[in-house]
Each structure stands twice: as C-alpha cells, then as structure tokens.
C-alpha cells in the first residue's frame, strides 16, 4: 500500500479493517500524522456540549407559534434569548458611535470660533485702494449657533445615555450567561 491508497482508505474509514494500512502507517511518518489528525477530527469536532436550555426553548417556540396554548414563561424565555443575541450583534455594530460623537463635538467646537472670526474679520478689514478711511459702519450680525450647538449636544447626550443603557443590558446579559454556565456545571461543584 502506498501513501495515496492509505489516504483513500483513511477518508473511507477503512483503515481499521485493513492490515496493509496498519502496516503502512507504522512505516510512514507522514501517513501516521494524517491518521492522527483524522482521529483528532473524529474526536474533537464530533464532541459537542449539551444543548443550552434557551436553544431548546427556541426550537420549541417554532412549534408553539402555531399553537396558541404556549405558556407566557416559554415565550418570555425565547424572547429574552432572541433579544440577547440581537442586542449583542447591535452592540458590536455600534461600537463606533461614541468616538464619532466625540469627534463631531470636537469639530464643532473648533470650527465655530473660526467661522465667526472669518466672517466678522472680513467685514472689519480695511478695503485695499481706498486709503485710510474710517471704517464703515459694519452691521454685525452675530451668529447665534447656540440652538444648533445645543441640539447637537443633546444628540450626543442622548447617544451617551443610549450607550450607557446598552452597556447595562450587556452586563445583565453576561450575568445571565454566567448563570447559565453555573447552572449547567452545578453537578460538578
């Protein structure tokens, strides 16, 4: 038996039945390594932890959708599990919000004084070619961006509140998962 035949026998799960294959693996280190990986795949990839109760509840809920006598507790359990997963994904996708909000506020704080300085500065500058004339009466129109700034700050605050609430819910979710793990391993305490 050569290496190619051995590999063919290995993926066909015929190695234990073939003495030739066993002889070959004893004399070929490459195929011995293949056999070891095959065994590890069979063991490690096939082993699975028990199905979490909430996943079974999700399974059950698919049937309960068409059966009106589902208990409130079952529906609540499914809803919590589903919300937890959705929220976890949402939180991951929104991790950029806080830095973005901070950058927006910083940009506003920098550009507002600059804009004000340019507008008023231009109007107060001496016009070229007219000599020293008394500066014309400049009608200064103060820019009142307070309302916009307040609005933006309010949005930032709202985002911050939302993120804080999200963080709290994430902690609650973590605690719930930890409790699941503890309950699952209760018998080993």
């Amino acid at each position, binding site marked *: 038996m050569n290496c190619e035949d051995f590999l063919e026998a290995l993926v066909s799960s015929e190695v234990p039945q073939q003495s030739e294959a066993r002889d070959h693996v004893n004399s070929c280190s490459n195929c011995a390594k293949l056999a070891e990986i095959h065994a590890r795949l069979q063991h490690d990839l096939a082993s699975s*932890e028990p199905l979490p109760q909430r996943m079974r509840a999700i399974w059950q809920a698919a049937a309960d959708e068409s059966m009106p006598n589902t208990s409130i507790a079952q529906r609540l359990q499914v809803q919590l599990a589903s919300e937890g997963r959705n929220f976890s994904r949402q939180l991951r996708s929104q991790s950029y919000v806080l830095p973005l909000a901070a950058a927006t506020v910083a940009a506003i704080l920098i550009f507002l004084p600059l804009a004000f300085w340019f507008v008023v500065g231009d109007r107060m500058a001496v016009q070229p070619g007219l000599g020293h004339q008394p500066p014309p009466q400049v009608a200064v129109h103060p820019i009142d961006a307070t309302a916009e700034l307040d609005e933006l700050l309010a949005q930032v605050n709202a985002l911050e509140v939302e993120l804080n609430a999200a963080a709290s819910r994430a902690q609650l979710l973590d605690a719930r998962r930890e409790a699941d793990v503890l309950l699952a391993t209760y018998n080993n305490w």
Partner: protein
Amino acid sequence: MANTSYRREYLKLVDDHGAAVLAMLRRLCGNVPDAEDAFQETAVRVWKSFDRQPPLRSPRAWLMTIAYRAFVDLHARRPQGDVLTDVADYRLHSPGDAAVKVEEATQLGTAVEELSENLRQVVVLHYTGGLTLQETAEVLGISTGTVKSRLSAALSKLRSILS
C-alpha cells in the same frame, strides 16, 4: 395541521440531535450569534416541513441538511464574523485536562478555520455533523468521489498547517 405526535417527534429531534446541529452551525458560521440565528431558522424550517415530509429514513441527515441550507442562506446575507474559540465543550473536565484539551482543540479548530470554504464545509459536515460520505455528498450536491477528494485535500492541508 400539527398534531401531538408530530410535536413529540419534532421535540425528540432536538433532544437527539440538537447539540450536534448547533455545534456544526458554530463551526460553519465561525461565531456563536450567527450559529444561533441559523439554529433558530433551522427550527422554523424543520417545523414547517415536518408534517409534509416526516424524516423517516435518516433523521440526523435530514436535520443536518436543513441546518446546512439555513446556514447557506444566512451566510449569503451576512459577512463572516469573529473566529470561534469553542472552549465551552471542555468546561466539564478537570482544570488540568481542560487546559490541555482546549489548547489542542483550539489548534485544530483554528487549523480547520484556515481551510478553504469548500474543504471546511466537507470536514464540518462529515466530522461534526456526523454525516456519511454519501450524505455529505447529497447535502452539498456533489459526488461522493468529490467528497473523498476534498477530505483527502483537507487532511493534507491540516497536516501541513499543524506541523
């Protein structure tokens, strides 16, 4: 439409094979939230088709096929997520054993993640899903010979990755 016996059989399916289905989906998806979404989608599809096509011949293969298709549909809609490090399988072992097993499983799991999509799907369906070569071929819509050649290629690739 749904009667009690259907419901009982349906729940027996998840009790018998649910853990394997979830493990397979985790390996296919590469992250837990997507795997759980695919699992939920699998549950809906199984229930919807249960009264039309009771899985009499091979419930496990039937279930894995539906789960795989749910994964494919979800995968088409969503980009790949984080790579899974599945340490939970070993939480029931003693701390010393668990550390060694987690290390080994992480190496193997990472190596499997590095396989190309085609090779990884064959490996996961065959080893984690527990499907035979023929069942794997049917799920993927390819010949048994192709499954064998992909498994051979995957083993050779894993050997080079792990060494």
